[in-house]
């Protein structure tokens, strides 16, 4: 709800007089009239998320037209997969999304297992859940305070970076890598938890509980932050299906969309958690959803640690991976990343090499079609906050 005081301070451009609208209902934009300026935000700009750019036409300090330009990170993964065997795809595929690489390897492993008909042992599935939730936690620890950093409140981001490091340390114990883990393989995972891992993770989660209270005090009760986020970047409910919006952005608009509950994978049906819903669908609501997600993730991690078996087989028998022929077929596998539904469409032609692996990430629509429309009539100082609230991640758009 928007209270009356905040309504006065809300940014409401008066578009009744200027710029003039043409016959098709769109504003008439003529750069030579001297009333419009074309500005490029990015790729070399601190206010964009990653290496992408926005071509903005502005009038005063309002955006009249926006175009997203991507391709600065295009590496041609989908072409490279055509030349790599299935096992060789694993170290390559995780680089498709840098902040949260585990969802890539999980999706690819699950797609391969579905096509080849492999059953994964129970302990391995629990370890996969552990890795996925830890990955989500480390992204959210960066993203939740990072929203305030777009408005100049960088302190929370520095704190969050410290707590993210704690989770990265646990990742290093579990997998050996800080950012890229290469932990999940077809048939299972690569290793068991080391001794004392549960206790150390438990201690870290206790610290993160305190951190959540701290950012509440620092950010959520901050008057400037509330004024600059409430009512900004509103996404109407009918856009959600029209643009294929998923994840926290859809949940902030009041939709019950969460792949973990809708299409249960691994053992999420044994875990007790709920949809985090908000209804205002502005930057603040999306932020609130992510903050609740942070608590939920900590809670899920505790439940996983309590329910996980101590010992067990962590990898199923697979054929020799160098000669592994996957039967012909196609499938679509999905899981919930921190940004929304993250899916792989895989086609196998019965040979040792995949025919096509296509990634559909949430940013594909959030950063291109939704952002282009959402930025119209926005103030230029709100652009980076809107972008971060949509959690646009360029490497998964262009692969």
């Amino acid at each position, binding site marked *: 709800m928007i209270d009356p005081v905040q309504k006065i301070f809300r940014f409401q451009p008066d578009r009744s007089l200027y710029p003039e609208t043409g016959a098709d209902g769109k504003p008439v934009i003529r750069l030579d009239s001297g009333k419009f300026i074309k500005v490029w935000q990015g790729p070399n700009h601190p206010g964009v998320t990653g290496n992408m750019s926005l071509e903005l036409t502005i009038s005063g300090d309002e955006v009249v037209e926006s175009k997203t330009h991507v391709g600065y990170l295009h590496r041609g993964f989908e072409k490279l997969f055509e030349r790599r065997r299935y096992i060789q795809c694993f170290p390559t595929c995780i680089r498709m999304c840098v902040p949260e690489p585990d969802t890539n390897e999980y999706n690819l492993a699950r797609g391969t297992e579905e096509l080849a008909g492999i059953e994964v042992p129970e302990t391995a599935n629990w370890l996969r859940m552990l890795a996925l939730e830890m990955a989500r936690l480390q992204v959210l620890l960066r993203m939740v305070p990072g929203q305030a950093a777009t408005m100049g409140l960088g302190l929370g981001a520095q704190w969050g970076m410290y707590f993210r490091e704690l989770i990265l340390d646990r990742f290093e114990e579990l997998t050996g890598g800080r950012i890229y883990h290469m932990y999940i393989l077809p048939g299972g995972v690569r290793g068991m938890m080391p001794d004392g891992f549960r206790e150390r993770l438990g201690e870290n989660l206790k610290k993160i509980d305190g951190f959540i209270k701290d950012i509440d005090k620092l950010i959520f009760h901050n008057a400037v932050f509330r004024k600059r986020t409430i009512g900004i970047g509103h996404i109407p409910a009918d856009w959600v299906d029209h643009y294929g919006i998923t994840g926290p952005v859809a949940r902030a608009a009041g939709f019950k969309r969460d792949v973990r509950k809708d299409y249960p994978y691994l053992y999420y049906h044994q875990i007790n958690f709920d949809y985090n819903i908000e209804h205002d669908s502005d930057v603040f609501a999306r932020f609130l959803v992510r903050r609740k997600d942070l608590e939920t993730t900590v809670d899920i991690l505790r439940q996983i640690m309590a329910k996980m078996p101590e010992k067990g087989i962590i990898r199923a028998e697979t054929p020799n991976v160098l000669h592994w022929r996957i039967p012909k077929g196609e499938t679509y596998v999905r899981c919930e990343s921190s940004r929304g539904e993250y899916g792989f469409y895989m086609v196998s032609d019965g040979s040792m090499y995949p025919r096509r692996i296509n990634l559909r990430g949430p940013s594909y629509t959030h950063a*291109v079609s939704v952002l282009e429309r959402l930025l119209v009539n926005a103030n230029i100082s709100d652009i980076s906050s809107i972008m971060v609230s949509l959690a646009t991640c360029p490497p998964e758009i262009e692969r």
Partner: protein
Amino acid sequence: MEQLLDRIIAGFEAADIEKRKDGQVFFTVPKPKVLPLINHLKMFEGFRNLILMTAVDWIEDNQFQITYLLNNPDTKTDLGIRTFIGRDGEGMDSIHELWGHAATFQREMKEMFGIGFPGSPRVDEPFLLEGWDDIPPMRREFDTKKYSEETYFPRPGRETHDPATYMKQKLYPND
């Protein structure tokens, strides 16, 4: 699900049905039936979410497979609609009016495969590549390794082994 499939088979000549898992079915329909089918599914069957739209190159059969993956958020079902078109410049009908993000998929397919979508907004603008002057890179006949070696000054010293023969030589050198 079964009734829905029966309706699709009867009304839209669906064939080659492949049930992958609970609530996920892939099937093939002929090209003229694709747009009516998608319209029907969106209007009357609740498949109001377009997850993805992509192309697969079957160079052996000289055709492209275009896959539309529709999702019904209420019944939690996915329908993968396949259709086949020729590889030699044959276009496909655009669905940009049904979904806001379909134009992005079509722009990428135009650039990566060279499949035309007449009428789709900004479809001819470059999306990922800049100043590309070769054939569209996702076509199977495009050799990325050869292109890279000719263009980007490979650093000498990289050795590539076929993993199978290399392991065989290592493990059984006398064979």
